[in-house]
Every structure is written in structure tokens, then in C-alpha cells.
């Protein structure tokens, strides 16, 4: 199917505007129509992955943590890697919606809905991992400060408690932000629905009628929420990074971790947005709405954060060798010569070398290429977390205690399950909610 590229720089005639607005509405809403077999297959695979993950977890709870590969001295492995990975993915949602909104970056409106959805689902996924990695998950509620007659309290010195608050706050705020941003669109959807579905969407749209007054309040609330969410982008991943930085372990105990992790999170988040939007754009035929120019801008963010991440890698080494600290030096030598060296090289290639090609605008504007790069970045960022977590623990102070960790099938199963869980949510989202912000796109040409 041929599509006319819309050049928003050129003023449109009123007729064109209305046509364009109708087309947006039509395209977005058509994505919500009856699912194709391909969709069902996708959903089926995702649910199967969830099932594999659930069985693995049940097995782990029943038998003990020992079914995972974690051991002495590597007490955290794939689970915490997955946790940090998914929290990282959750980042670009808020970045694209809130920060770019405040900066009035126009291309944001193509991605914000899917990015926000991704944020909410990624936090939902990430939030599972602190539970999965607990030795006694049935006592997970002890991690919350709830009043009890035994006067037991949580330890507010522990970064894990900060994590509990950071992640739950982030989930709450991003969910609200996601929902509030969707209210006018839900009202549009309501128009096209009948029967029970119409009632649901009516309730969800909170009786939105689109009056001037409503829009005024709405815009104020949205701006306010954007302002509230912005610091969270920085804080959540900073707190997650402190899980490591607050420890004494060489390779973890470093002050650059907060900015390093935030940049990494935005990097991986942007990559995940590309990974998700490219097929979505194709599948729901949104080429006209989400243009190559928009991808170009996303790729620029990817390149920029990649440079920050690369810089952080170099800084880590510089500090380690400048410090003269034997443990730090040994740790960073271990990273490039130890048992896991190929993981380190893989990470460096995916996160630093490959994104450098995005300096070429030709490659930036090549959607297929960008898609491939985004996949590599996802892999690279997963290994970055793995490397930091596992390598630091495997080779710390006491040489006697050095050890080796390899994930077990159960850990692979649960990781697979987490992807299934995430995609299940995303696929349900794609059929039930408008995947692109209709009102904002309309507003652009209004």
C-alpha cells in the first residue's frame, strides 16, 4: 500500500487537515479491530512463555532457590539482571512522555503511548523479580513497613527497602500518567464501541466530553504529572544503582553508578521502544503517522546515551587503575581476561561500537538497520547488568571464595516467562487501547 508522506512543515489546507485527522483516527482505531490470526499466534506464544516461567517459578518455590544456578559467592544472578534490565526498559517511557513533553519535542507524540505502556508493563515485569529472587517469597510482605503487634520494622538503611519504595512509586506514577494521557482518546474509542464495551470505555473515559474547560484542567494536570514524573526518571534508576553502589564490593562500590545507570536505562529504554514500535508500525500500518524523521530523532537519543554509557565504561577503568586499589584493579582486569570475558566483549560491542554507526544519518534513517541495532542494544544492556552483577561477585576480596556462576534452566525459564509476561500485556494493550495518541496528533495539525 502506498502512503503519502505528510509534510507537517508545509501548511495544510483545512480540507487536508480534516482528511488527515480522520485518517489518524481511522488508522489508530482500525488497529483495535478484530485481531488477525497472526495476533492470536503472537498472544499464544507469549502466554506459553508465561506458562513456562510460572512452572519454573513454582518449581523453585517448592524445591528451593538451589534450582537456580546462583551459588557462593554469586548470590545474585540472572534474576537481578532481569530486574535491572526491566527497570531500565521502563525508563524511556517516562523520558519520552514526560521529559520530551516538557521540552516540547514534537516527535514524542508518535511514541509516547507505546512508550508509556511499555513503561507500565516493564515495571510490572521488573517488580516480579525481587519476589522471584527471594529465598522465602511467602514472606515478601515483610519488606513493607506495615504496623504489626510484634513491632517489627524494616531497615531503612538497606537499599533494598529504597528499591521497594522507588519501584512502587514509579509504578504508581507511571500508571497514572499513562492513564491520564489516555482519557481523551478513550472518549474517542467510546464513540465507536457498542454494548458492554461502550460501558467500559465510558467508565474509563470518566465521562469526558471535550469541553474547553475540561481541556484546560486536563492540560494543567498533564503538565503537572509530567513535572512530577520527570525527577522519577532520574531517581528510580539511581536508587536501583545504589543497590550496588551502597555495597562494599569492588565493581559495585562506585559513585558514578547513578548517572551511569540512568543513562544506561534511557539507552536501553529507547532501544526497546524501537524494537516494539517498528513491528507495531508495520503490523497496524502506521507508516504515515510514525515517520522516518521520528525514528531518526529516537536514534539520535540512542546514539547520545550510548556515548554516555561508553564514557562510563572507560571511566570505570580509569578510576580502578588510578585508585591503586588492588581489589578494584583485580576486578577490572578480571572483566576482560576472566571466565566471562566474552560477555564483556559482547557488551562492549553492542553498547559502544555498534551504536557509533548511527553517526551516519543514512543508517539512522534505515528502519531495518535501526531495528537490528536496537535488538543488539537490548542484548548488550542485558549483559551489561549481568557483567556488573555477576563478575563483581564472582571475583571479590577473598581469592578462596572466588567462584563461577552459570544460569540454570530454571533461570532461563523464568527470564523467558518475563518476556512472555511483558509481551502478553503489550499485545492486550495493542488491541484494547489506542496505541498512538489520537488527540495529540490531531492537535498538531489543528
Amino acid at each position: 500500500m502506498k502512503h503519502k508522506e505528510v509534510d507537517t512543515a508545509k501548511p495544510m489546507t483545512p480540507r487536508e487537515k480534516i482528511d488527515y485527522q480522520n485518517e489518524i483516527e481511522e488508522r489508530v482505531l482500525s488497529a483495535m479491530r478484530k485481531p488477525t490470526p497472526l495476533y492470536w499466534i503472537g498472544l499464544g506464544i507469549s502466554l506459553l512463555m508465561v506458562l513456562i516461567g510460572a512452572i519454573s517459578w513454582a518449581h523453585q518455590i517448592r524445591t528451593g532457590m538451589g534450582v537456580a544456578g546462583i551459588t557462593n559467592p554469586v548470590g545474585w544472578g540472572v534474576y537481578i539482571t532481569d530486574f535491572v534490565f526491566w527497570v531500565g526498559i521502563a525508563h524511556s517511557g517516562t523520558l519520552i512522555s514526560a521529559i520530551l513533553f516538557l521540552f516540547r519535542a514534537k516527535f514524542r507524540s508518535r511514541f509516547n503511548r507505546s512508550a508509556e505502556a511499555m513503561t507500565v508493563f516493564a515495571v510490572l515485569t521488573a517488580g516480579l523479580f525481587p519476589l522471584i529472587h527471594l529465598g522465602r517469597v511467602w514472606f515478601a510482605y515483610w519488606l513493607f513497613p506495615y504496623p504489626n503487634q510484634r513491632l517489627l520494622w524494616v531497615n531503612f538503611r538497606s537499599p533494598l527497602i529504597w528499591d521497594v519504595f522507588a519501584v512502587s512509586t514509579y509504578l504508581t506514577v507511571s500508571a497514572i500518567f499513562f492513564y491520564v494521557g489516555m482519557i481523551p482518546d478513550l472518549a474517542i474509542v467510546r464513540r465507536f464501541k457498542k454494548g458492554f464495551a461502550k460501558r467500559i470505555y465510558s467508565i474509563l473515559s470518566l465521562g469526558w466530553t471535550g469541553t474547553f474547560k475540561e481541556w484546560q484542567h486536563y492540560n494543567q494536570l498533564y503538565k503537572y504529572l509530567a513535572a512530577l514524573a520527570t525527577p522519577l526518571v532520574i531517581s528510580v534508576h539511581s536508587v536501583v544503582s545504589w543497590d550496588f553502589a551502597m555495597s562494599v564490593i569492588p565493581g559495585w562500590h562506585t559513585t558514578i553508578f547513578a548517572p551511569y545507570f540512568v543513562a544506561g536505562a534511557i539507552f536501553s529504554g529507547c532501544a526497546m521502544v524501537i524494537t516494539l514500535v517498528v513491528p507495531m508500525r508495520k503490523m497496524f500500518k502506521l507508516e504515515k503517522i510514525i515517520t522516518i524523521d521520528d525514528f531518526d530523532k529516537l536514534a539520535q537519543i540512542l546514539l547520545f546515551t550510548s556515548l554516555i554509557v561508553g564514557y562510563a565504561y572507560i571511566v570505570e577503568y580509569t578510576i580502578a587503575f588510578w585508585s591503586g586499589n588492588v581489589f578494584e584493579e583485580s576486578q577490572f582486569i578480571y572483566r576482560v581476561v576472566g571466565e566471562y570475558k566474552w560477555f564483556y566483549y559482547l557488551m562492549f560491542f553492542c553498547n559502544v561500537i555498534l551504536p557509533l554507526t548511527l553517526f551516519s544519518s543514512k543508517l539512522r534513517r534505515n528502519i531495518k538497520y535501526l531495528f537490528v541495532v536496537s535488538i543488539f542494544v537490548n542484548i548488550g544492556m542485558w549483559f551489561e547488568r549481568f557483567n556488573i552483577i555477576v563478575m563483581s561477585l564472582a571475583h571479590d576480596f577473598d581469592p578462596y571464595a572466588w567462584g563461577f556462576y552459570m544460569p540454570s534452566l530454571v533461570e532461563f525459564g523464568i527470564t523467558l516467562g518475563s518476556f512472555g509476561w511483558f509481551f502478553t500485556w503489550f499485545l492486550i494493550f495493542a488491541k484494547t487501547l489506542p496505541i498512538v495518541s489520537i488527540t495529540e496528533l490531531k492537535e498538531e495539525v489543528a
Partner: protein
Amino acid sequence: MKRRDFLKIVGIASSATLLSSCGVEKGTEKLIPFLVPPDEDYIPGVAQYYSSTCTECPANCGVSVKVVDFNPIKLEGLEANPINRGALCLRGQSSIVRLYHPDRIKQPLKRGANGQFQPIGWDEAIQQVVQALKSARGQGKANVYLSGRTTGSLSRLLDNFAKDAEVERVPEYEPFAHANLREAYRLVFGRKEIPFYRIEDADFLLTVGVDLVETFVSPVSYAKQLSRAKDRENFRWLHFEPHASLTGFQADKRFIVKPGSEAYLVGFFLNYILTNGLNKKRIPPEITNALPKIDAGQAAEKTGLDADTLNKLAAQLAEARAPMVISGGVSTHQKNGLETAVLTALLQWALGLTDRLVDFARAENYDHVGSVADVQQLVKRLNADEIGVLFLARTNPVATLPAAIPFAQAMARASFKVALTDFLDETAEQCDLILPLSHSLESWGDAEPRKGLLNLIQPTVEPIFNTLSEGDILLAIADGYQGRPNVFSYQQWLLREWNRTYGEAFVDEFLKKGFYEAPAKAVRLSLNTRALTRFLKDAKLDVRPQGHILYAIPSLRMFDGRSKVLKLTSEIPDPLTTISYGEWITVSDETAERLKLKDKDEVAFQVNGNQLALPVKVQPGLNGDVSTIHWDQLERAFLDVDQRSGEILAVVSGGQMQKTGKKIAIPILSGSMEEAYERGIFPDHNGHGMKHHADVRETLYPPHEHPEYRWAMTIDLEKCIGCSACVAACYVENNVAIVGKEEHLIGREMSWIRIEPFYGKDRDREMNFMVMLCQQCCNAPCETVCPVYATMHNPEGLNAMVYNRCVGTRYCHNNCPYKVRRFNWFDHEWETPLDRMLNPDVFVRHKGIMEKCTFCVQRIRTARDVAKDEKRKIRDGEVIPACSQTCPTDAIVFGNLLDEQARVTKLAHSDRSYRVFEEIGTEPAVYYLRKKEIKDEA
């Protein structure tokens, strides 16, 4: 759905959830208190201690058995016992597992018609033996009793039994019979004994191959003596060996000699002393003339040492005020082992040691122990069909004899074979009748490990299975044979025997004290000139081992293999290699380089058609062509016998080694044995790395207050010998789980305290041991990161563990710089009746929670309760953690750092004191005392 249906479903679902969560969690069943206690003195949960004797090896150390609620739960060395003086080794600590071992034979077994063992009753079993004895006598055959080392009253009972039941008692069989040593002393002094070496009083100790602190005769006794000797500034210890032993690394200086050259070394010292020393008169000229003449040059050539060094050492030996020379172990288990032993005995005589330090008055009691030569004699008689009933008591010749002696085939020719044993071992499997023995903790008895020292064995628990003690069995058989009613139990027999031998008053004191030391009878030694001259004429010093040489070294953990069944001995790694389960062979750095071997690579070792294929562990400090294997892991086919003395030869020469290319998974628990100095695990000798009183760090948190006690520990690395007794004691005291090989392969050992070996600066000659346990840091990294306060600093300075609060984030483990926390990856099984061994004072941790050392907080608790009742503070030395209690060298001292007079305070402030990784700012409560400088360069 209707409203009613909905309510129904919700109701069913919620009640099902409630019901399922009301189940009793494993191990939390209600305890029902006694209304009427079954015993006057008995208070539930309060420990009682009974003196007894450890029977795990022939050393027979005195033990104090801790009994709680009628279950013996731990053995501790008996403080007053002159052998072990309160200490106990790894095997002794583990031997409680033997008592409760689920694989013990549970009732008498008889081989049925189908060849399988059938359980039978005791009366029937005894009847069968009596009948067999009688019918064998009727056929004119001899009935023979072959046992492991037997001493004390049991030995006298055996003599009675032999008379009453017309059974011939043949010389006992022990794989470690020290036949060459005993034969040497017979040749030199006419006494076939192993003297007691008083190394505690020596100031210059020279040991040749002898594994004093591992398995040699009475290792705990020697370790204790060495520790006392090391307290003296002027004590010097040199060790010579071709292989690498734990003992060797404890010496001030360790010399690696060429294999088989030990005889030349000792011969040179003897020649030197005779020409330059003081006592040359004491050796008659015919012996001097018969002696091989060895000068420094020849000795240097043979041993591979420097001639100047040898001369210097010999001069030091001659000048020493109280020198001491001992050879044994591998140096006497080779072809010229007898020569080495004879020359050593002569050297001891020439140095005048036999007057004082080589003590025959307190000789080790090997009176009835024969040698392999005696077993060969028995085999001959068996093959000639001269033997009717063959008793095999506490011995496993089928598994331990060299394959050249076909014991299994020979014993099949006996008409009736009776095993008296506790496990179904290789020998018992060949027998017709198995009479299960009670453990020494279930029986009455005594042991006389040393001349004039009687150790008590008393029961601490009702027999767990349907077993009897050997004494009871012997009495029953003798009575049956004589047609008398069996009225005497062994206990009654013993009491009568004690009364008769020592008098009424003795028994009460004996029962209370746990041992009796008779005054030593002076022994006058004289040279056995004729036998000695004859021997020296035929002596062949040069054995020239060829090719690759394999040393079968006795294992600290398994002894001759008998302690293998204990499980705990396999769980605790061998301290030199840190390998826990499986079999391996060590190779030198040179061999590893030549064959391009890395740890876990499989090699094939071939000699005279025998072959073994095992994974390697590279072991620095071995002579180039030498490999070692633990005695219990070597196939019997490789072993040979010295026909002169009946000693088993443990050095296999003429071998070839090849790499097979396979890699075998064996659990090597140490990640690395390098970098200890760079990382400050040991400070170097000029004090670098000892930031003991480093400046106080800035902190946002208020300092911890310790109002009354600040528990602390000092560990003297000069004294620590790496024997791992502390590890075993900790396992038993704290219900630490045994997890097995598969878990060890992925690094999930559970030990709370561990011995970490590290190469020294001289990689070949030094090896240092770090004892790592929870450091009870003041600023503990584990405490701040725990989200639920499952680990927290208590007012006595401990990192207390609240096991039930732990949710299992494992963050504390990650953040521990010492990596001493252990996570319970699974629920652990204590197969019945092993669960009776659990210490009721210590929580049994289940899956998903973290555990670690807490300085035996249960012992602190008990001491505090006692102190509180007496309205005082806990005294210094009142609390002794299990590791410190059992330490054979007293390396571990525990106490209250706030008490200025406490031993621990004084040691912690000594100039050797330092703490590991102090620069992290953890403020540990474990202070290490670094090794002393080597005093001179020899």
C-alpha cells in the same frame, strides 16, 4: 453467575486457602514436656558430660561426650587427658556421625542359602558361632581371631576368650602398623615398639617425612606438643620430604629432597654426629665400622640439597641443647624405609635422645599389632585349609591389604567366617555371619593407647540398633563354648577386672576422671649390637626410584580409609588441595608444565601393568617427578610389601604419566591460592599490610555501644596447622548441613569456618593457612543491607542472626567481604537416626534463609545464664566456641575484649595482631596473629 453461587465459590475458595495454610510446618511440631522426669538428675535440654574415649583411630584420645536429652550430640577432647589435652581432630569430631549412621548394621546377619544376608537373633547367632567353633575343632582345624588394634581390658578378655573358646589369637592387623619403625627399634634396642616422642621439650626438631600432625600414631598429641614448643622463642623445626604434606608446611623450614634419599640424609647426620659430636663413645666400634660412610658431598648429591646447607644443619643439630630427630610416614614406607628408621634410631641414640625425649616408658601400645608379614602367614595357613572359624573384628583386610596378598580368596577357604564390625565393609561382605558391634559411645570398655595410660570407655546412650559390644559377644561365645550360662555382662566383667587390677578406690576415680595414668616404669635401653651389625652389613641405602613416583600418603580426613563412611569427612575439604569429594592425584609444577596439565585434567598413571586414571591437582612444593595420592584412594594393586618387616610400601616408582585429554569434575573449593599477600590477607614480615590502629572513619551512624561484653577472637596463624578440626567441630555443634558432591561442584559448601590455603612468597616451600569465619564486624556490611533486620549487631558485639526473620535476599552474603555467609539453597535431610545428632540449642535452618557463624552464641547464652544465677559476669575462658575448644594447637582464643585481663585482649594487642581487609573499615572482631619471622637463614 448468581449472587449465591458467587458467595459459595468465594466461601469454598477462602476456606480452602485457610485450611491449607494451617498445616504444621516441618520441624515445628509441638514438644510435650515431661510431667514426671524419668531420671533424678535429668533436666530436659541441659547438657551432661561423660568422659570416654574416641575410637575412630588407634590414637584413642580422651573425650568428653555431651549428652542432651539422652542423645550424645558432640564429642570434645577431654581437657585433662594426657594424650590430647582437650583437643580432638577432624576425624574425632566427625566420629559422632558413626554412632547415628543410617548405614550401620542394625542386627546380626547370616548368609542364607541364596547367598544374601538374613537378619537373625543374637542367641541364634552366638549359637551358630559356638557350633562352628566346635565342628572346626572336631575336624582338627584351628579357629583364629584376627582383629584391629586391641588394647586394655578387651585385650585381656580376648586372651581369656582364646583360652575358653580354644581360639587362636593371631597378631593384629593395622594398615598403619608402623612396622618399619617398630622393626628398626627392635634391631637397634631390641624393643619392637613406637616410643613416645617428647617434642614439646625439644628445641631443635628435625623431621624426615613424618606426618606428625596428620595421621602419625597420635596426631593430636603431637600437634599439641608442637604448639607448646612453638611458644618457646628458641624452638626451631626443619622438615625434609620429597612430597608436600600438611605437616611439612608447618615447619620453620621445609626442604624438598629427592625421592628415596632420606636414608642418606639421616646417614649423613649420623656420620657427622659421630665424627664431630659429643657422644661418639656410645656407639661401639663394630657398629661404627658397619655404618655406611656418607659425607656431605654424597648426601648433597643424593638428596639434591646444598652440601653447605647440610653441613650447617648438621652443626646446628650437634650443637642443639635438646635436639630431636624423627622419621616416619612416607620416609619409612619405602624400600629403604627400614634403613632410614634404623639410622634414625641410631642417631637418636647417638644424640642421647633416648634418655629423655624418645620415651619408651610411655611407648605407644602396639604390643599385639603384627604386620602384613603376619597376615601373609595367616593366608598361607588359610590356603592350607588349616583354619576353621575365622573371626575378623574391627578390621578390613580385604580392602586395605596390597593386592599381592590374596586375602579375599584365602579367607574363602575358612570354613566359617565371622565379622565383628559396624558397617558392611568389603571384608564383612565375604563373611558368613556378621555380628554388629555397638559404637564405643554405646558400650563399656577401656583402652590403653600408651603404656601405663588407661582411658575409660563408658556408654552414653542405649544401643541405637540391635548391637552388642565386642566384650559381650566374646563372653557369650566363650560361655556358649564352655556350656556355661552367660551370666556376666562385659560391664560386670570389666568392673571385676578393674577392681582386681587396681583396687576398689580406683574405679570411682577412674569413672569420674575418665583416664588413669600409672607411674612410668623406667626403661633401660641398650644397643642390640649383634642384630644391628648384621642388619647394617646388608643394608641397602640406594633404591634409585625411577620414572614418575607416586606417594600414597595417609589422609588427614580418612586415615587408612576407615573414616570414609562418616560423610562429614568427605564434606570437609582436604586442607592442602581444598578438594572435598572425589579422587585425585597431585602433580608438581614441573610435571604440569611438561604435560600441559591444569587442575581437573585427567592423567593416566601406569606402572607394571597397573593403571589408574584420575584428575590432577597441581601442587607446588613437590619434587619434580613426584605425585601424591591419598592412601584410601589408591588401588591396592599398586602397593607392595617389605618382606623384612612386613611394612606396606607406599611409594610406587617406575611409573609413567600421560595426559588423557579428558577433564573430570572434582570440587576444588578454593577459587585461587594466589595473591594472599597483595590483598593483605597475610601481612608480610616487616609489618606491611598491618594497619592495625588505622584512623577512625567518618560515619553518619552512631557507634555501636557494647556495655558489658565485646566478644572477640584471636587466631594465631603461627600455630594453625590447617588440620580442619575446627571445621568439623563447627559442623557438629551448629547443625551445619552436609550437602554432598553435586552441590560442592557448583560451589555451595555450607561450612561456617574454613581453612584457606595460600601459597607463600616461596611458592614451593611455604603454604599459609587462613582460618576464615564470620568476623563479627563492628561496622558490618551485611547488617546495613538487610531489609528486614534479620542480621543485626547485638550489644555484645555479635552479628546476630534472626533466622526466622530472614526472607532470603542474599544481599548480606553478596556484601560480605569475607564471604562467610551461607545460604540454604534447599531443605536439608538428616536421615533417621542422624537427626538425633542435632544440637537442640541451635536452630535447624530450612530452605531460603541465610546462616553463618555467631561465635557459638548458644554457648555464650548458656554461660550467661549460669553467670546470672550466680550474680556475676561471665569469666574469661568460660565461653569457648566449638572451633576454639577442639583446636589441637590452641590457635583460637575467644573472650571479652572489654576485659583488660582477658587472654584475647592481650593477644589482640600483641604486635603480631592484625585484621583482614581492615581498609574496608569493617572493624572485625577477629584478630589474626601473623606468623613469626623465620629466625635465621639455613
